[in-house]
């Protein structure tokens, strides 16, 4: 009887360990930890966790986005944009908006207005615009000499949605 109980416990534990070490679960747990570290401003710890998460789930756009966030904070814009481009490629519907906006932010800060405008133009035909998009587009248009269109964008009556995914905004 004792043997059966022991074997059952061992089997359950083994199965339990197997389940919690599923790559998607492991990536999720690392990503959560990294997000908490980001909230505390611990970039190095967050990066280490995100790298572990990426190893288990290289196709999760939010992991790539947060890696971009860290790279941007470290001043490595090229890598930051690279991560965001990957994230955008993985989301081929309206869910790519947070990544487009984040990439456009980097481009505007670095005065690469033409590229920022072409990126932001991807969202313009959509039925709803994410919150904050209108101003960014207008800004990009002005910097590209399109004042009249910027005015039209600012005055246009267009549906706006809040960002669908919960986020952590941190100033640089």
């Amino acid at each position: 009887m004792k043997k059966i109980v022991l074997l059952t416990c061992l089997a359950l534990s083994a199965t339990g360990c197997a389940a919690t070490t599923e790559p998607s679960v492991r990536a999720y747990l690392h990503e959560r930890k990294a997000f908490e570290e980001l909230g505390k401003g611990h970039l190095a710890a967050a990066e280490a966790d995100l790298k572990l998460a990426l190893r288990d789930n290289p196709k999760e756009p939010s992991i790539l986005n947060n890696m971009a966030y860290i790279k941007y904070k470290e001043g490595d814009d090229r890598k930051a944009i690279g991560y965001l481009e990957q994230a955008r490629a993985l989301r081929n519907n309206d869910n790519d908006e947070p990544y487009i906006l984040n990439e456009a932010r980097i481009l505007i800060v670095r005065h690469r207005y033409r590229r920022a405008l072409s990126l932001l133009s991807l969202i313009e035909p959509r039925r709803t615009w994410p919150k904050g998009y209108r101003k960014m587009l207008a800004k990009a248009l002005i910097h590209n000499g399109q004042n009249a269109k910027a005015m039209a964008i600012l005055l246009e009556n267009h549906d706006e949605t809040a960002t669908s995914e919960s986020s952590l905004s941190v100033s640089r």
Partner: protein
Amino acid sequence: MRSFSLYFGALFLFFLQPVEARALSSGSGAGDFLLPFSDDAAVAKDFQALAPPFLPWGPNTSGPFFTGTAEVEPVGSWYIEPFAYDYMTPGISASSLSMPMRLGVGLGHNLEFDTFLPLIQNWQGAAPSQGIDRSASHFGVGNTHFEVKWQLTSDGNVYLPFAMPAMALTFDFWIPSGQYQNLNPQDYGADQLGNGTYNEGVMFLLRKHVKPFMVYIQLGDIVENPAAVGPGYTFNNGTDQIPWNSGSVHMVDGNLTYYAGALEYVANTEWGAGGLLELYGETQSGTSLFFGPANAPAWSFLWIAPEVEITWPHAQKFSATWGAGVALPVTESNYPKTYTPMGTVTLYFNGPFGYRGM
């Protein structure tokens, strides 16, 4: 104010040449305040680190028989759950097949309302040691049970053991709808379908997911109001009885504590297939919390119950969970050894927010 700023800025832009606009919007010149947005560097403030998308795990399983679920049914969803517990007590040659029909409705605001209406088939076999020389059986309705469940917290992380578990309080009421008076001596107690008391209880429920396990705990206290009971009445330990030649008795039950816990292992999430090991016990003390010393006997028992479960079908709008098990006596005091085969099916009619704990 925002609209005014936008309109004014737009109007201003209309009269500007591109070069002027660029100068005004990108630098920190004196005219910046006229535009409805800040300088370029401020754009970085909105760079967003994103929270990981929720990775759900909360299969719809049959769950334990005696331990409740801490999550409430979402608003718009409801379920019917017929149970069957066959309490077999070979020591006194008796069995009681209790078939509570549970109806659970999600009310919203973290509340759920449940009713339990039990149908009972009692059977009393020949027990010469107790002076019973032939068998008797009786069918009818037992005590009705109402419950309001209030969910306090949700599972914080279904993968981590020490994250916040789901917790709830339930407020329970029992109405003595089962027969307990005017008993027929020739039925040897089989015609008693309730204990005659109005009861009130408060329970604490906890559930924690740690994929692929779930842990359930239920602790509660039940106060049984005094009741007038007559000859032939069997107390709620199932053995002590008021003599047939006795008169009416003002019965006071002791305080009743309820404790149960279960460990569930889900082998297949989609099919809700798995097994449980459940512990369940009750203890009735010699004193009522509100009504003083009890004259009903004190007793207690602890049972262990291995159970299996499966979910089929498991469509989004409708699913059915099936469970079976047997409760076995571990220890008891002034309570007969009882063996209880059990079965249940729960028919879930899911609204837009799905089922509880998903």
